[in-house]
């Protein structure tokens, strides 16, 4: 599905990602962990094209997308849920979703029933403006907005950050359902180890822009955590 090979990404003159390589298989969930500033979000932004890699290659289903514009990557099947969620505050829940459909180039931009099937909490608030939603509602809307684009690859940046336990549990169930029911792979950036261990097949740890460790989630032992994720 996704093949990232030896990418180097910069912000201006700051070299953020160094020779990063990573593979996400069909229907697989891979988690990326790392301390703050390790380059996790930059990796997602390189894959989406917001911060394209300077060197190296990124392939989606064997198509080289390394220098492709962001909107073309979206149409190819990459959807991104950023950490800040980026809900448009003056648009309603339904309008936020309709806008995502437009971004994908879908002619019929009515909110599909599938959204309320996955996110029943959004149905009664479909007419409410994005800016007045709680953090949990915003996160559900952000994932819903990505999901209606029928992605092949879903990129989630810390989807549980700042959320109450019951909403974390809901997000966990929704991600599991997406993996089971939709033909979609997930690349997840997350700090909660129990969450990662529960839903992940493979993991990668970024340390100052380098891949410091990766493997099957069974190899994400306390010793590995202590070695690479200690403050």
């Amino acid at each position, binding site marked *: 599905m996704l093949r990232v090979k030896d990418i180097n990404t910069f912000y201006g003159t700051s070299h953020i990602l160094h020779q990063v390589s990573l593979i996400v298989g069909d229907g697989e969930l891979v988690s990326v*962990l*790392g*301390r*703050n*500033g390790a380059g996790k979000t930059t990796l997602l932004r390189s894959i989406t094209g917001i911060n394209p890699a300077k060197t190296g290659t990124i392939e989606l289903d064997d198509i080289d997308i390394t220098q492709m514009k962001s909107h073309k990557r979206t149409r190819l099947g990459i959807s991104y849920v950023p950490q800040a969620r980026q809900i448009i505050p003056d648009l309603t829940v339904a309008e936020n979703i309709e806008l995502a459909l437009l971004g994908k180039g879908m002619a019929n931009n009515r909110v599909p029933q599938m959204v309320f099937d996955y996110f029943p909490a959004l149905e009664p608030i479909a007419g409410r403006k994005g800016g007045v939603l*709680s*953090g*949990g*509602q915003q996160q559900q809307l952000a994932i819903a907005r990505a999901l209606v684009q029928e992605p092949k690859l879903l990129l989630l940046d*810390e989807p*549980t*950050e*700042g*959320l*109450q*336990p*019951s*909403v*974390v*549990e*809901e997000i966990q169930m929704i991600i599991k359902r997406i993996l089971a029911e939709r033909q979609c792979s997930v690349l997840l950036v997350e*700090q*909660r*180890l*129990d*969450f990662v261990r529960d839903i992940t097949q493979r993991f990668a740890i970024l340390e100052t822009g380098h891949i410091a460790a990766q493997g099957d989630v069974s190899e994400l032992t306390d010793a590995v*955590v*202590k070695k690479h*994720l*200690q*403050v």
Partner: protein
Amino acid sequence: MALLDVQGLTTVVSGYTILNNLSFSIDENELRVLLGPNGAGKTTLISMVTGQFKPTSGKIFFNGEDITGRSPDEIFIAGISRKFQVPNMYETLSVYDNILISLQSARKVFKYMFKRVTPEDNERIWEILDFMELARKANEPADTLSHGERQWLELAMLVASNPKLLLLDEPTTGMTEEGKRRTAALIQRIAQNHTVLLVEHDMHVVRQIARKVTVMHQGQVLAEGALDEVVENEMVKAVYLGKGGQH
């Protein structure tokens, strides 16, 4: 006597009731954790206590004095300090200097900018740096610190201002689990000498430090008591913890 006593606080914004006749108190030297769903009114409560917003009705007493409607700087001088979710500090100053200007006697920043550091100040700063495990970073500018270290520096600055009550709003946001563990340990240490009200969602952190918790829902207190009892409360499970309550 309660150090902080909130009586019948109501806040209505644009027709929405955020706090609904909320009554709540904390005793001196308590470490209280405030839980509740996103949107329950936790941050609003803190903003009312620190004077950022004025309540529609109700009273806030601190140390026996009515502080309702007072300005944020008057409330700060009275002894209440707040830590926001995003750290505030002087980015280009060193860790040491950031703590210097937060010392209790330095509540007037400009006075300290042009004053020599006394041996007593210097000793106190190093004491705080050691206490908060920041001594090895003393001479580094704040903007070179990691996310976790920035949070700890802001906690250190709060300690330096020597408040009677510290209000900490989600201080572990964005941290790795190891960072959260260390922050929880630091908060426990701070609570040995201060009264602390902590807003926190991460149940690992809450379990590590909580003695007594208050759960808010829809602007009111839903449950209050020892953590082990509150997490078994069916209403708390329904609105906040979920089935597992593991996160």
